[in-house]
């Protein structure tokens, strides 16, 4: 029952980071970059030195063992550290990911949007966008934090070395940096708008396409099908065009970044020459110049880092929307059984906020299930959600045995079976949401909803099921089995016989209502034909 997340859950930021792992990853990243830079620089210096020494008798006494050993060391460091960086970095990111996702899951469960009408993340396309956002945040540290820190430190060190050995070169290098910074601002500034525009076009297109596909029969009959597909596909095309814009901007930044290292190298060399250094005295600046050249490869990645950081920012904003305004507090003690439930002056509203009909009042008694009838759209589901505590009761109130219940208590006391209940990708046992029930109870529930044969086929209670393997009717019966196993004093069933054929629906419902005879049971049905001996109808009017 302790299923309420703490009320202050916000999006988990860097609190959960695994500092030790990230530090190790950072260390490896530094080692790898240093190895690469030194490998190139020292090799260059070594060749220059031996070439100069080779001209003189000093060649015979030149100690080449030491630099050769260093060069091999750098080569191995670079390889091993790069591998270490990848492995440790990914491990740290995955460890963070596990905690972040679990926390996000709880935060979203606590947010009110999940209980409102129409769970948007039930749509595959919205879910896919959401998962993109989650992934952008999950890997931000690996894609942005780690490489930008490493690169930043390397650049600062190289700048310091340049300032010390060839200060004149700084003019050119700073100009290059200014150009690159400008490029970066340009990319991040436009990138935001590009990514947002892309997503907007795609979502709009998807909405239109979904609407058109639903209306395929009338549209084809009226010869409008082809033209109706125009708008959504134009939307997809304009999203792709937006992606192209972003790629082009990225290409400009790539070009600027690609010039940075080679130009820095040439500037250092020229400045050293112009300040009059010759021969062996040129070797240290040459080493520095080649070090600049060696970080070129990392600098090339800068546009990817920028895009990843833009995506991360947008993703954080998008994700925050799913978990704002966690409502309610920790759970309170609730009675295990109640005899009556009274609704007073409940005001129903449509999902868009309009008032629906007159305020509603009724009394439900344990053992006397009621069935809500009424045309679709008259607010049956809203009423059930209000009883379940998923929507607030506004000015009205809900009383259990004469005691007013707030939304939290109502939520804790009721089992709500939405009409579009999902099947979890999990075992049958877990799908029944009854961890304390015995196997025997579970089988009884399954046979009551006439699903036992199907489940035996699918591998018994520990067989793995998904939404795709069950038909709509089977999923509905599984949903009813959950209600059968519920221990809550209030059981609310939204359209319980949808997708079932009439006789089977009546049979299962009769059995279910007998099982729940001590409980308060309210069900809804838009079919006025659904009449049950055990169940008094209650007309929900407009």
């Amino acid at each position, binding site marked *: 029952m302790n*299923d309420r997340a703490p009320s202050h859950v916000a999006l988990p930021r860097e609190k959960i980071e695994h500092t030790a792992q990230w530090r190790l990853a950072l260390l490896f990243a530094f080692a790898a970059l240093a190895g690469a830079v030194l490998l190139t620089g020292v090799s260059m210096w070594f060749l*220059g030195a*031996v070439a100069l020494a080779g001209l003189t008798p000093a060649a015979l006494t030149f100690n080449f063992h030491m630099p050769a050993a260093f060069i091999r060391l750098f080569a191995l460091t670079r390889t091993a550290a790069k591998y270490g960086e990848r492995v440790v970095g990914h491990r740290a990111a995955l460890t963070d990911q596990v905690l972040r996702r679990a926390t996000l899951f709880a935060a979203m*469960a606590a947010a009110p949007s999940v209980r409102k009408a129409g769970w948007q993340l039930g749509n595959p396309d919205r879910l896919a966008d959401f998962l993109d956002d989650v992934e952008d945040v999950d890997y931000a540290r690996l894609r942005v934090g780690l490489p930008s820190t490493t690169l930043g430190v390397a650049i600062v060190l190289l700048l310091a070395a340049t300032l010390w050995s060839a200060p004149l070169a700084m003019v050119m290098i700073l100009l290059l940096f200014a150009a690159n910074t400008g490029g970066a601002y340009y990319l991040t500034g436009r990138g935001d708008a590009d990514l947002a525009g892309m997503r907007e076009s795609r979502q709009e297109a998807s909405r239109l396409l979904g609407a058109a596909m639903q209306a395929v029969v009338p549209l084809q009959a009226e010869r409008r*099908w082809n033209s109706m597909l125009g708008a959504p596909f134009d939307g997809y095309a304009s999203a*792709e065009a937006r992606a192209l814009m972003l790629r082009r901007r990225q290409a400009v930044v790539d070009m600027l970044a690609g010039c940075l290292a080679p130009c820095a190298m040439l500037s250092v060399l020229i400045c050293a020459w112009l300040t009059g250094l010759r021969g062996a005295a040129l070797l240290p600046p040459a080493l520095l110049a080649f070090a600049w050249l060696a970080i070129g490869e990392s600098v090339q990645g800068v546009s990817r880092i920028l895009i990843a950081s833009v995506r991360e920012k947008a993703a954080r904003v998008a994700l925050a929307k799913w978990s704002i305004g966690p409502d309610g507090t920790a759970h309170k003690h609730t009675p295990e059984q109640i005899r009556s439930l009274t609704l007073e002056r409940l005001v129903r509203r449509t999902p868009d906020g309009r008032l629906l009909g007159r305020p509603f009042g009724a009394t439900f008694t344990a053992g006397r299930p009621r069935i809500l009838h009424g045309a679709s759209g008259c607010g049956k589901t809203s009423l059930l959600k209000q009883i379940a505590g998923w929507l607030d009761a506004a000015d009205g109130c809900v009383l259990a045995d004469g005691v007013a219940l707030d939304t939290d208590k109502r939520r804790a006391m009721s089992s709500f079976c939405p009409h579009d209940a999902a099947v979890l990708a999990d075992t049958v046992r877990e799908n029944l949401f009854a961890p304390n029930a015995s196997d025997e109870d579970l089988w009884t529930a399954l046979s009551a909803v006439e699903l036992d044969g199907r489940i035996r086929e699918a591998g018994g209670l520990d067989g793995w099921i998904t939404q795709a393997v069950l038909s709509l009717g089977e999923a509905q019966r599984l949903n009813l089995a959950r209600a059968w196993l519920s221990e809550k004093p209030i059981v609310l069933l939204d359209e319980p016989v949808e997708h079932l054929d009439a006789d089977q629906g009546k049979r299962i419902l009769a059995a279910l209502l007998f099982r729940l005879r001590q409980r308060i049971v309210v069900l809804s049905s838009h079919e006025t034909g659904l009449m049950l001996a055990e169940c008094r109808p209650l007309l929900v009017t407009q």
Partner: protein
Amino acid sequence: MLNAALNRHESRPIRSKASEKPIPNAVSQPTAPGSATLRLARNLAGPSLRAALALQMARIGSRIAFTGLSAIFVGEMIFGRANWMLFGAALGSLILGSVTGLATDRVLASTELKVANGLLGAARRALVAASPADVQAMPAGTLIAGLQRYPQAIASLAVGHRLASIMLGLGPSAAAAAIAAVSWQAALALVVLTPVMIVFFVLVGGAIRSGAEAQEKAFGRLAAQFADRIRALPTILGNHGLARERRKLETRLDTYASGTMSVLRIAFLNAGIIDFFASLSIAVLAVFLGLGHLKLMSVPGFAGLQLWQSLFILMIAPEYFAPFRRYAEQYHAKAGGVAAATALDTLVLAARPRSIDFETAILTPDLIHAASLLPRTGLVAITGPSGSGKSTLLRHVAGIGTARSDGSELDRPEIAWCSTEIHVPEGTLGDAIGWGTGQSCRTRLLLAAGNVGLLDDVLLPGGLDALITAGGENLSGGQRVRIGLARALASGRAILADEPTAKLDPVNAAMVRRALAGASRGRLVVVATHDRDLAMLAGKTIEAGPASQQVEENAA
């Protein structure tokens, strides 16, 4: 699959301008094994990819030129000769390289756009050509999510990844050729090293595959647990399963992450091999060339070189390995693209519904004959028990569906279809009724709306200005049917209505019956219905059903 859709389309009567254009090359392609979508993408990429390849070669050439020229410049400079011509040439090749680089990226990006748009176009044509039953059988949500992402993923496989794999042969050859100009022995050493590297690749590749298979076998089910739980969140809350699901989710994500890590540890070896060979080649070359300079070793090709020569070799050697690295970086593009292509193959026309068999079974020649003899005006009812094919016959009358009539094509292009499925645009009730009719005269709209009781509907207050949300989500089935009917009345076209009274309360049902009967005085109205009262009003009744097909002529 897209091809299959297009070929099937040839035999279909509904043709639109867009769908008549064949996809270049796509239809005539021999059916090789593999993904049809991927073949289509490759064909779309064709010529632009060659331009990108040429540019990429120019870019690699300029890069090698810059690296080589600056190596020569530095080598000479240390010996006291600053050759400014060389410097200028190096700078020139750097600029040339940057510009060709920019051009390559732009061409690549626009080629990918072209491919993605081509794939979208093919998907659209497949959708246009699909029968209503096909479309209804498609998994709409998955298809829509796929159309948002797959074209781009496939395009980057067919363009970016393909370019990288072509460069795998050309890039190293260019670098080796440049080195050979200075020392063919050094170039040979690099070339000889390559097979060794490839052996390692093959070994690691096998280990990655078996590791990934083991991971899939052990934890495949846990792959999308987070997405699944987010999707099912309301159900979990309704059943008070949050605490348990959260704990389970954490454990499972953790298990899956460690499984993934063990695969990644091997997968990263791939990049590690390239790093190893690239680093080692520099280290070994530097030491060898150094010993040559000190005259401590006299391996031909490594001794007796000028400084600029050995620097040249040393600096170009990494270019030899760079294409391998770039290819390895495209690993994700490959995996994602192949998965997307397979998915798009099956998605657009995955569904082979019962349509054809079912329709040929249910639409007997008698029925088709009966349906072809429709009057110009009057009310015709198609009746029968549910599942007897009323709707199928009505679709046939509309000229949609897969089963064809015996050539006597109904010449009735101007149809208004009325059912709960009709398209309702966002806006006002007036917009919804006027949609597609070309009718904006307020009086006519008012009349039509009033005829079906939409003006005094308590649930839709505001008359013609009543607000309708996106997708008509605030409408009930009955309201949708009545909007469809009002639209049909306003359009003046022949009306085909599928169960127009099924979702209505008695008062509204009577109003709709009256409106249909009234409309049938001036035009043809065909209804598929199990509403006896409506069928009673019909001048002609077609009884659909597997056993008895009778046409009753009532005295109208």
